[in-house]
Every structure is written in C-alpha cells, then in structure tokens.
C-alpha cells in the first residue's frame, strides 16, 4: 500500500476519515432462511412463510445460495474465507422485524480482511475491507399512507443481504463515490446483486470524522444514513465534513450520533434517539448450527468466478487494441461489456464495434436514460449497419442516420405493438431512406460534371492554384447527390477532371 498516493480533502488544517457500510441485497431466488420467493415489487404481504411472520415453532434453514453468493463476493475482493462461522442474533424490537431479532453474524463473519482497488482521475488506491457478513433483511414500513398508523409489508423480511464493511481508509467524498461504484461493478459482474441504489438493493451508511492534519487519533464520528443514490453519498459526506470542521473551528465538539441525509434540503438532521442506544445483545443463533466450508467447494467457487472488471479491461486493451479510457468505459458495466463483445463477434470488427458502442449506443442510452438492457437493437442488427459502412454502401453520416432511425423505430414499436419495425431488412431500409451511397463511377460522374458546369468561376480559380476549393466542390457534389456519393470516388473523379 506504500505505493498508494495520499489524497485528502482540500482543507489546510483538517483531513477527513471515512468508513462505509454497504448492504447489498442478494439475487437469490428465495429468502435467506425461508424457502419462499423474494421478488421486488410484488403485492404486499404475499411472499411470506410462518418464519417470516415470526410465528412460534418455526425454524430457519440456510439457503445454500446465500453462502455461495457471499463467498463469491469475498473471493472477488481478496477476503479470507472462514472455514467455520456462525450466525448470531441481533435483538431489537421494530414492527418490520416480527421475530424480534435479526439473524446476522457478529464475531465470526464468513469473509474478512479483503480489499477493493478504486480508481480516481489521478491515482489509484486500495481500500481495506474489514468484513463481509450475511444477514436477513427487514420488512418495509410505510409511515405516510395512514394518519394514525404505520403500515407494514413483510415481503422483504428475511431476504438475503450481505453487509460489506470497509476500513476507515477513505479520505475524500470522491473516494467514497469511487468505492461505491466499484462495489456496484463487482456485484454486477458476479451477478449476485443488481446494484440499484434507488430501489434499495444497494444501501450505504457512512461513518465520518475529521481530525487536525498530522493527528493520528480519529476524531469523534457521526453515522450518516438515508443516502439513496451514489451522488447523495458524495454530497452528504462533503456536507458532514464541512459541518464538523466548522463546528470545531467555532470551539464546538462533534457529538457521536446518527444523522439522516435530507436530499431535498441538502442537509443532515439528527435522528431522534431511537431505542436505547444500540444495545443489540448479540448471542450465537441457537437455531442454526455452524457453517462449515470445505476446501474442495471453496476451490470450485473460486475457479468458477467470472472475469472481473480489471482483468476484462486489460484483456480488451490487449485483444481489441483499445485505449485505456475506452476499455474502462466499455468494461464499466458487465452488460455493456457483454454487448460490445457480442457485437465484435457479429461484426468481426473490434474497431468499428467500439466506435459504434462508444459514440452511438452510449449517446442514445444517455439521452433516453436507458440501461444497456433496455437498448432495443440487437448486436446482429448493429453488425449489419457496420457491414454496410465497411462495404462502402453507406458513409459515416448515413450510418448514424440509419442507426437513429432504427432506434426510433424500435422505441416506437415498443409503444405500439402493431408496428412492424422489427424484422426490417436493414439494407432495404437504407435504400428506402436514400442512404445508400453511390459507389459506381458512372453514376457519380454526372454529379461531378454538373458541379463543374455550374461553377465555372471556381473552376478557373482552382486551376490558378487555389486547390483549397476542392472542399467546396466536394460539398457541392455531396449536395447534388443528396449525400449519397461515395466521397473517395467523388474526389478522385473531381481530381481527374480538374487537375
């Protein structure tokens, strides 16, 4: 870690110390300890078993995929994996937790001592992971639907979660943001969590403190909650650092407390002291014997790990001759990287594929707010567009026009099921739109002759040595051919006739 650069907040007298706790909801089919589905967005209180309801006499059973997914995450982040670990009971009363306790892990997390490398514009840094442990989620409470009651939906109660706890290695809000996006990237590559912070499948709490530069001991920390987007995490941490520094400079003292981020007011506010400060009275979960992992199974999980973003990025640079920035963009999300690779396979042209994805596809995704999964064109359709350009049938601008036309048609047909946009022959469409470029000398020659005949003055000046007028003639040829003349052929014909 000595090679890591030390970046800190932009303040002459203080630095910040930040640690993050990230909860990731695992995409297991069933809940952590009950064999019932846990799908987001189902009707309230329809995905329940007597266990989720906290009925007496029910017993938990560990979902094997809970262990498997957690170990995948641990291996992908360089953690040690505990060969033997136990569950613990975390006791508290809240209506969205009918059992009166959460099954979690306490003294023996299944994964520990890992690290995550983050990349910032000017440096890289490793953030230590203290632990990754398994636990069950709570239900959801609705407080604003009924004036006198809170309403409880227990569908989520008991769903499988992991908590990823970082070391206090983070020094700036930007590093916190980079760390979170990195976690999202890894869970998506591992296909264990969809990484959606707005829907709550990734949740982040931040511990923030400040200290005078040069001081070793940590300052008093506060815990930030309720940040439901990556940008909000960055903003809330920045706000809290500024607040703590201002407080200390005014002669005040930071209180250890939990603060809620208010994204509308862009401020934090103190959470009313909930419960008797945290006194969870953890003890070993008596209903679940220890989890024991054997070496052969661990090995099989390890060798089945998918290619992770760093490795894939390096391979893209090597295999497709991409620049580092392009490779980073293309491997940022697994689904985009997959799409790119399927386009390379379909088109046989890595360079044209990366240009197509980086300029056209990503622009459309940004403009329309789509994820790559929502992008309506298949890689084989895009490969046909690439082929038309490669075969000289369309030029670059016509290629973009054709691409946009296909996107618009596909988007409209998604709205209107009677539309027959899908299954259209792409070359026919290009013809229909007059986008096919004329690549036949005998067809281009009349355009060239027409332009020469219409501009005798420019022709004379060109012949006097004003060769920069070639651009003007080309423009005129493209104009009279309505953009369809193959530019290379048109230029060589012009040269032949004028030089």
């Amino acid at each position, binding site marked *: 870690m000595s090679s890591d650069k030390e970046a800190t907040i932009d303040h002459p007298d203080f630095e910040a110390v930040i640690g993050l706790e990230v909860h990731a909801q695992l995409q297991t089919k069933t809940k952590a300890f009950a064999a*019932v589905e846990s799908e987001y967005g189902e009707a309230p209180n329809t*995905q329940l078993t007597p266990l989720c309801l906290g009925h007496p006499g029910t017993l938990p059973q560990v979902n094997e995929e809970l*262990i498997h997914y957690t170990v995948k995450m641990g291996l992908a982040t360089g953690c040690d994996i505990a060969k033997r670990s136990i569950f613990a009971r975390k006791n508290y009363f809240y209506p969205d937790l009918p059992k009166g306790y959460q099954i979690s892990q306490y003294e023996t997390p299944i994964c520990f001592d890992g690290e995550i490398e983050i990349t910032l514009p000017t440096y890289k840094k490793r953030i230590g992971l203290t632990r990754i442990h398994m636990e069950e989620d709570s239900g959801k409470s609705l407080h604003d639907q009924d004036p006198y*009651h*809170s309403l409880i939906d227990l569908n989520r109660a008991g769903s499988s979660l992991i908590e990823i706890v970082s070391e206090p290695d983070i020094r700036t809000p930007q590093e916190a943001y980079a760390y979170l996006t990195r976690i999202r990237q890894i869970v998506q590559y591992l296909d264990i969590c969809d990484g959606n912070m707005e829907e709550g499948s990734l949740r982040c709490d931040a511990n923030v403190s400040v200290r005078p530069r040069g001081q070793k001991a940590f300052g008093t920390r506060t815990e930030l909650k309720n940040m439901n987007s990556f940008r909000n995490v960055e903003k809330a941490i920045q706000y809290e650092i500024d607040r703590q520094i201002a407080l200390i400079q005014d002669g005040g003292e930071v209180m250890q407390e939990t603060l809620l981020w208010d994204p509308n007011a862009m401020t934090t506010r103190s959470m009313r002291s909930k419960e008797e400060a945290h006194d969870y009275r953890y003890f070993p979960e008596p209903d679940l014997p220890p989890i024991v992992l054997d070496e052969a199974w661990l090995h099989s999980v390890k060798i089945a790990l998918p290619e992770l973003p760093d490795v894939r990025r390096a391979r893209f640079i090597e295999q497709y001759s991409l620049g580092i920035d392009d490779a980073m963009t293309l491997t940022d999300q697994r689904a985009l990287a997959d799409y790119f690779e399927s386009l390379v396979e379909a088109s046989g042209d890595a360079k044209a594929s990366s240009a197509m994805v980086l300029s056209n596809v990503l622009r459309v995704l940004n403009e329309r707010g789509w994820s790559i999964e929502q992008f309506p064109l298949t890689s084989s359709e895009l490969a046909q567009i690439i082929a038309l350009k490669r075969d000289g049938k369309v030029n670059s601008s016509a290629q973009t026009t054709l691409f946009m036309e296909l996107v618009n048609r596909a988007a409209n047909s998604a709205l209107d099921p009677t539309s027959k946009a899908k299954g259209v022959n792409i070359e026919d469409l290009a013809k229909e739109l007059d986008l096919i470029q004329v690549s036949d000398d005998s067809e281009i020659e009349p355009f060239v002759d027409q332009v020469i005949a219409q501009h005798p003055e420019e022709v004379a000046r060109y012949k006097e040595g004003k060769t920069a007028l070639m651009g003007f003639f080309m423009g005129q040829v493209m104009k009279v051919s309505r953009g369809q003349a193959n530019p290379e052929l048109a230029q060589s014909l012009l040269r032949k006739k004028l030089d």
Partner: protein
Amino acid sequence: MSVTLEDVHYIAKLARLSLTEQEATQAQQDLNKILSYMDELNQIDTSSVEPLEHVFDFETRLRPDTPEAPVPHEDALRNAPDADSDYFRVPKVIE
C-alpha cells in the same frame, strides 16, 4: 459484579417487559444468584478451550434455493391484531 435495580429495569425495557417493583426486586436477586454462579465458573482457566456455541457437534444443512408456496395473503394477515386488506397496521412508528 452485581445487578442493580436500575439494570433490571433497563433489561426489562429492552425486552419490552413491564415489572412491578416486587417482581423487579425478585429478578434482581435471581440475576445476582446466576451471576455469582458465573463468577464461580470463571475461576476455571478456559484460555485453551474453544468457545462452544452449540451443544451438538454438527454443521448446518443447507437448503436448495428453490421456492415453495407462500402462506396465502389472507392467512398471513389473519392473526394480526390490526390489518387492512394489504398491510399489517401498527401504531405510528414515527411522527
């Protein structure tokens, strides 16, 4: 180490138990008896003994990630002290 009446009330509150003064005094005596027995046990040197979390020496049997039928919605809500057609209804948790 001995348990005060204050400790008893604190623990009772965490467990959502309401105790009369007489019950609290009784609980204090009981807890102190248990703890003094613990003190006796603590005289034994256990530094070389692994903590025992479970009496039986076996490991967790894992369950395949296969969904089974849920409890019907109406049945799930039936035992609740209060519910509407969709949700469990509880006293307002936050203002």
